[in-house]
């Protein structure tokens, strides 16, 4: 046990050093003029800009909007994917009918829908949520579909012999099985919801972190662009760890190694 905790500390120190080293190299290269400061910024200014956003409070409104868009896109996309996935997995005719169209919709690069959504829903929150939903929906949908198809036939037969009605099978067998598959996709889909929000903002908006980045880019303020990226990355990591916590709470019934596998 002691050896493994010492190992963990060493690993952590190594990781921090790697990050520090990255910033140091960046700093040295831009200070000595090897990399032009105009295009690459300087880490001191980037960190300073990010810190100033938080101290002045300017960032909170934008960050709040981006997070609301992300959470809405994530929630709606997941709910929609769950419902449609369950339905199609249990209705073979409908699923056979829709299969080519679902494949086509999934293959299409959905970011190009952003301008259409902007026209339909305006430049506010809704158009970003719509973009995020189209990204999240398919990830969840395919996982739920798979989850229902992979329910063990013996477990299903057992539940039927124990007297489960069709609705009870849905509630007590299909849904829990699908949920475990959904959770293994949540890390990807929360990231995708974030992508939908930021890309949507970047393509046209009046608020949000993507909007801040767009503005800074318009003014050739590369340091602020980097600061925006830094803040986005930090919050993406935060969202991801919330999902991990949720997963550990809700999938207690799964053997530990399966959870680490799906991470």
């Amino acid at each position, binding site marked *: 046990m002691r050896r493994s905790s010492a190992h963990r500390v060493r690993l952590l120190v190594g990781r921090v050093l790697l990050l520090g080293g990255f910033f140091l190299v960046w700093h040295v290269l831009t200070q000595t003029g090897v990399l032009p400061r105009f295009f690459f910024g300087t880490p001191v200014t980037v960190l300073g800009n990010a810190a100033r956003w938080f101290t002045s409070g300017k960032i909170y409104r934008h960050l709040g909007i981006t997070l609301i868009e992300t959470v809405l896109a994530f929630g709606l996309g997941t709910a929609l994917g769950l419902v449609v996935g369950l339905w199609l997995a249990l209705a073979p005719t409908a699923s056979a009918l829709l299969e080519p169209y679902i494949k086509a919709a999934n293959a299409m690069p959905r970011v190009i829908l952003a301008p259409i959504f902007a026209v339909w829903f305006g430049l506010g929150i809704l158009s970003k949520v719509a973009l995020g939903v189209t990204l999240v929906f398919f990830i969840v949908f395919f996982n739920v579909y798979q989850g229902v198809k992979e329910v063990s036939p013996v477990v299903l*037969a057992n539940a*039927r*012999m124990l*007297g489960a009605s069709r609705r*009870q099978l849905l509630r007590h067998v299909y849904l829990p099985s699908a949920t475990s598959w959904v959770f293994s996709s949540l890390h990807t889909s929360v990231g995708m919801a974030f992508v939908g929000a930021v890309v949507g903002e970047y393509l046209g908006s009046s608020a949000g972190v993507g909007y801040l980045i767009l503005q800074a880019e318009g003014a050739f303020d590369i340091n602020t662009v980097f600061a925006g990226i830094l803040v986005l990355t930090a919050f993406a990591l935060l969202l991801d760890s919330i999902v991990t916590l949720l997963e550990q709470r809700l999938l207690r*019934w799964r053997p530990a190694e399966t959870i680490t596998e799906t991470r």
Partner: protein
Amino acid sequence: MSASEARAPALALERITCIFPATDRIAPPYTAVRELSLQVAPGEFVSIVGPTGCGKSTLLNVAAGLLAPSAGIVRVAGEPLRGLNRRAGYLFQAEALLPWRSARENVAAGLQFRGIERRHALQRADEWLGRVGLAGFGDHYPHQLSGGMRRRVALAQTLILDPAIVLMDEPFSALDVQTRQLMENELLDLWSADRKSVVFITHDLEEAISLSDRVVVLSAGPATRAIGEFVIGLARPRDVAEVRLTRGFLELHREIWELLKAEVLKGHAQIQRA
């Protein structure tokens, strides 16, 4: 219960035939079972033995109503069976517990499906967990239990519903010898406390003789039939380990094995050819 129902066998398979469509276009359809008849009296423990791949599980699925036979009738207490057999409990060969439910919730599942209130169902589940020797393990999930413990949970899950007929498909085949004999004795204890009709499928002849009132021998597949029936008159209560050393057991074993051996060799030859 009417007089005729009381006299009717708990379960009767009448001239059951099961034909499965071919998996590819060239192969002919596969006849798993042909014109097989079997009767189980109320409270009787019947074992079915036969070589591997002879359609034993198919037969049990027909009795459970999970599989409709291509021809023939299943009667439950004299009534023709339509749909699932509501009077039967089924102990599957493979793992069939709901992995997302704890042991207690698994045992309570059937009661909850029948609309019994959750708190009450869990309470009865705890009683049953105690009865199969798993008191204190209610909060464990299936993956946290050993193979033998999972079997006990499955047994409690089936018996808590008090089915008139219990169908068992090689329930102990995945267990080690010691656990297995323990479970066999416990099964006999549970059964003798409250005699249900049992159809017990196994490929282990010793297990079949030591548990049953009657042993039915099936022929090698395809087109499996019943080729022999032996009444096991050994005294009860039995200890499955001790009864194997008695003279009566050895004689029955020799007699049935004589018949079974030829079928096992036939089945083996077919597997090798395939």
